[in-house]
């Protein structure tokens, strides 16, 4: 987005606070806290040289996975991206096995073969984070086809960024899902940059959601920093998918606080733009609202943070103590 678009206020779905129950709001809050702390600690560990590879942080984008996954059933599927920690945490994955994967240990979700970009847990419906931008979208579409053919009632969410919507894979998959009326929600986390390239230089339309018109299914834009707005829109899309109404493209406008990867100075973004978005910290805003709504007290919020921090430190210790794979483990786990 260029400077003039910074003040754009996404057309948030208005939600009456009492329309959401306490349990749901508390759950979404906890998910956001979990993502926030996981990402902050992962950055510290990476900077300290403890984690191999590279790291794509979703700090600042916590509301999207929290809101979307709150609308899903446990047996629903998701596909994720290189910036995927938030998605898989929101889908219910554990800190310890995630951390172990980031450390490349045998106890990690992928036994150290995938790393940060490829966390998967099929038992939790996480069909994998993907290192190829846009590649998870056709896979999610296939999972939706499978759900439809098996009449399982499952819904699939494909998470991807604004950059992925310029991939042919997005177009091909969205069109196929439309033609076959598949139970899928395409969730675009529009964080306004594909690496360094702003959305204005990626597409001529003013919103990603407009692209849905080309496929003949609804496209919705919401404030991706508001978990309640995200949840409401996701719930509607998921219900549509589950009841045979077909796909939805849900664009959630958000912002990544960090560069594309940790170490990217992100000089392509104006400082005032970053500051504007940081003022709209999705977690801080949500917590203020939860207190106003008397859903949680300041003490309860602090306790949630403490519990998550403690769980995270234990997970880091678990990862550090976990065995490093043997070199020849590299030869295992190919398809037989």
């Amino acid at each position, binding site marked *: 987005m260029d400077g003039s678009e910074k003040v754009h206020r996404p057309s948030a779905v208005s939600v009456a606070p009492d329309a959401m129950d306490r349990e749901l709001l508390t759950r979404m809050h906890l998910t956001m806290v979990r993502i926030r702390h996981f990402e902050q600690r992962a950055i510290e560990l990476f900077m300290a040289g403890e984690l191999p590879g590279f790291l794509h942080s979703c700090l600042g984008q916590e509301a999207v996975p929290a809101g979307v996954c709150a609308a899903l059933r446990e047996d629903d*599927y998701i*596909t994720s991206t290189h910036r995927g920690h938030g998605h898989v945490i929101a889908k219910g994955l554990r800190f310890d096995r995630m951390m172990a994967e980031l450390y490349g240990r045998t106890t*990690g*979700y*992928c*036994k*150290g*073969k*995938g790393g940060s970009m*490829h966390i*998967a*847990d*099929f038992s939790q419906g996480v*069909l*994998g984070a*993907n290192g*190829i931008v846009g*590649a998870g*979208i*056709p*896979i*999610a*579409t*296939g*999972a*939706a*086809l*499978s*759900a439809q*053919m*098996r009449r399982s009632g499952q819904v*699939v969410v494909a998470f991807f960024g604004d950059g992925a919507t310029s991939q*042919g*894979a997005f177009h*091909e*998959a969205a*069109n*196929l899902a439309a*033609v*076959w009326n598949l139970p899928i929600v395409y969730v675009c986390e529009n964080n306004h940059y594909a690496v360094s390239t702003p959305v204005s230089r990626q597409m001529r339309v003013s919103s990603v959601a407009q692209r849905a018109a080309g496929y003949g299914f609804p496209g919705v834009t919401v404030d991706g920093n508001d978990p309640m707005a995200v949840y409401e829109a996701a719930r509607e899309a998921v219900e549509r998918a589950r009841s045979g109404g077909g796909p939805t493209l849900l664009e959630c406008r958000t912002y990544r606080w960090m560069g594309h990867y940790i170490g990217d100075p992100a000089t392509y973004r104006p400082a005032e733009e970053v500051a504007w978005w940081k003022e709209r910290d999705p977690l801080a805003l949500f917590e203020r609202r939860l207190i106003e709504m008397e859903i949680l007290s300041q003490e309860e919020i602090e306790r949630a943070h403490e519990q998550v921090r403690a769980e995270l430190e234990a997970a880091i210790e678990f990862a550090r103590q976990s065995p490093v794979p043997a070199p020849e483990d590299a030869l*295992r*786990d*190919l*398809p*037989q």
Partner: protein
Amino acid sequence: MSQIYYRQAIRDALREEMRRDERVFLLGLDIGRFGGTYKATQGLWEEFGDERVRDTPLSEAAIAGAAVGAAMTGMRPVAEIMYMDFITIALDQIANQAAKLTYMSGGQARIPVVFRTQEGAGRSSAAQHAQSLEAWVAHIPGLKVVLPATPYDAKGLLKTAIRDDSPVVFIEHKLLYGIKGEAPDEEYLIPFGQARVAREGTDVTVVALSRMVLKALEAAEELAREGISVEVIDPRTVAPLDLETILASVEKTGRLIVTHEGYTRCGVGAEIATQVVEHAMHALKRPPRRVCGRNVPIPFAPVMENYVIPQAADLVKAVRELMS
């Protein structure tokens, strides 16, 4: 035993597996009412309907990707890529996704998907409808690559491919669909990684892929009249490769020719020849020879097309040279 066409063998294998397992379904361009560009799926839509014989938009990446996603979640899709040349558009899903997700997820993902396609020159289809690109997929760990040369093998191998729990690229040849061969009436499967000795011989080993098996047999027949005994080996699957059968033959003959329509440079033949040199150098009386596609795009005019694709006469000449 019956005489069946190669295309019928493909169709019979699909039909039998679809009747046997309701998770098996087909998706691809024009495979339904139209019956497939080469009529390999003719009659299946009539029996199994829209849901299990799925015509798709013109969309190879979506066909392949949807097949991968469906395979990961309990189905057993058979995706058709109409021409192997079009696999370029689907290659991310095949080479980066299907081939890698099992490994990358630490063994969690099971991806029982078959990518059916066809390759080969000889119909003046020019450079984008005639390539033999098996080397591209055989290069990638995590993919099984099958190239049946006979109706018997086409049926038995396709049934095995569909029952396999991992990704298989099944490569037919467009000029084989119309050939006939014997196949049992009762059910049979052919395991992967077992080469077929198509003709026994003692002087030269010719390892031939796909339609080149037929040309190699033709050459062997001609050479037999000159008193040269050629052994023709059809690996049938290049990943996994049955090296043992090839090595046993080379131990006997001491001479090796590899032949395929795919480009010579970095082709599967180079891999086979290298493995033979690594394991049986002692047995080789002469350096191995490649009689493979020339390193140019496939031209349109028949006279040029025939020139760039190996012919039986090229094999006869190469064998004579090795014997001189």
